[in-house]
């Protein structure tokens, strides 16, 4: 795995907590050039400091005005992107609520983050992703999905519906851009012991939950399966300035 990710440029949204943080750590350890986004300045600085050489950017994927500001910094500092992992997610109401008790604003926030946020990040990075594909480096977008996108669970309506929309968008993106060499994949990491899960189900038995590090390893294995090996020109950093 060490060899497989050397020089690969990966961007992770929601990279300072839960699965996102586990992905940043594992990708960084495997030699990838990692960029990540999160909302809290101090957390971004801390995670960047703990993972020397990573590119941390402060921003909120649910805010339209933030997207291109994040993209400028990520693309400017990484030089491009081969893999995007849309991991930043919003639960909707916390603690979880029945749909009849769900405030519209909570549902809207889940849609803004999980559906429109991911869509906007993909659009802003699409030029770079397709460039990677044309250069034979491979290009991949992984959207973090959920069991709740497929099955109907009481209390998971807002989150589940947003993730179902994201999963469907993933399929259409893949259909439209397969010919350009960009692959799109929705992956369900399973129930993990993360701050988000604790917010959703405060009294869950944590010992029964998957560790995010395990899910991160599974994600990386799926990534490696879909990318050309070895990555061409991995050592050549792409610069026009």
């Amino acid at each position, binding site marked *: 795995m060490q060899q497989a990710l050397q020089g690969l440029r990966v961007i992770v949204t929601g990279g300072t907590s839960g699965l996102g943080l586990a992905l940043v750590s594992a990708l960084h350890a495997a030699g990838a050039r990692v960029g990540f986004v999160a909302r809290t300045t101090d957390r971004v600085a801390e995670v960047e400091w703990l993972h020397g050489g990573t590119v941390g950017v402060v921003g909120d994927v649910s805010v339209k005005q933030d997207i291109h500001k994040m993209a*400028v910094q990520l693309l*400017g500092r990484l030089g491009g992107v081969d893999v995007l992992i849309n991991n930043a997610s919003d639960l909707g109401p916390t603690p979880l609520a029945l749909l009849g008790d769900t405030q519209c604003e909570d549902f809207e926030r889940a849609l803004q983050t999980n559906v429109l946020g991911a869509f906007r990040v993909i659009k*802003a990075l699409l*030029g770079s992703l397709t*460039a990677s594909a044309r250069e034979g480096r491979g290009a991949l977008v992984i959207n973090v999905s959920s069991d709740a996108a497929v099955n109907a669970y009481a209390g998971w309506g807002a989150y589940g519906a947003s993730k179902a929309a994201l999963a469907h968008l993933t399929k259409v993106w893949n259909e439209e851009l397969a010919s350009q060499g960009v692959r799109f994949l929705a992956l369900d990491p399973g129930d993990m012991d993360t701050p988000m899960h604790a917010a959703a189900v405060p009294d869950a038995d944590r010992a029964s939950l998957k560790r995010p590090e395990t899910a991160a390893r599974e994600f990386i294995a799926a990534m490696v399966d879909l990318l050309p090996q070895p990555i061409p020109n991995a050592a050549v950093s792409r610069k026009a*300035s």
Partner: protein
Amino acid sequence: MIAADKPIRAADAKLLHVAADGSIHHGLRTDLVKLLHRGDVVVANDAATLPASLHGMHERTGAPIEVRLAGRGASAMNAFVAVVFGAGDYRTRTEDRNLPPTLLEGDVLALGPLQAVVVSLLYHPRLVSLRFMASTAALWEGIARHGRPIQYAHVGQSLELWDVWTAIAGPPVAYEAPSAGFALDWRTVAAMRGKGVKFATLTHAAGISSTGDPVLDARLPFDEPYYIPETTAVAIDTARTANRRIVAIGTTVVRALEHAGNDGVVAAGPGVANQRIGAADRLRVVDAIVSGTHEAGTSHYELLRAFVDDSTLQRADAELEAHAYRTHEFGDSILVERRLALPDSAWTTGSRRRESASRLLAQVGAK
């Protein structure tokens, strides 16, 4: 022509086609792919546009200023060449903008969260080299958060970055949008593939198109770095070997490819385009260009003179005018095919240069 004053990619945008035989045709930009041939290689500039306009204050005098980044300095990552304006913003036409306060070496410019020092003056009261006092991370963050896209008075509303990024925008290295690329959307790119047209990109750090000062404008375009991916160079050379056409989307692509292909073979990798292209130059790589519409006298227009003779360009201008094409970066488009080649001996650079020089003299004399 009419100024396109809104940052939209009009669905009914027009396309003027100047064919290789000199004939001129009107069409829709959505039909661009119909004018391409199987085996053509279309090359576009995938540079994304920086928010390169930074408002702030000249600390020594307290005067408000606008700094427009125009190029990277050679000495360091945080060094730039910049054009400095005085008080005011894009709503004033650039040529009417105030000069900045007198700039001296060592002056500090406070630009939102960033501070820059004037390192040297570049032979003009508006043109300086700057060094930002910031880490790479802080510099990117400062530019991303405080900067605005460079814009001109003909577009009234304040531009956002998404207005000036093309559909294929990748590395943020351009100071103004490589706007010919607004002709491309993903539907068009997919249609190229369906027709057997190869789509390729390079990255060219397009500089600013106007400084508001005729002396400075006469020096445009400045030197511009570019990067040509190996796959693009291979696609071009394969196509040329097979006598297929190279279609450039925009003047920056022509400039990069002709620079990199000076000896007839396009070299992959980084380079700096430092040449001007005009009527005297023989194109070695590019067979056709898709461009916005430009006014005579601009460097963009000069470059078109390398593709076709002046009388054809003048006929094209008349058609653009008569059919109310829209000009500037969000306007309509033209596709200009290189005039069918004359026997090689007639095209030697020297004779064309002489021919064009005498024509220019004749024009000057006529005025």
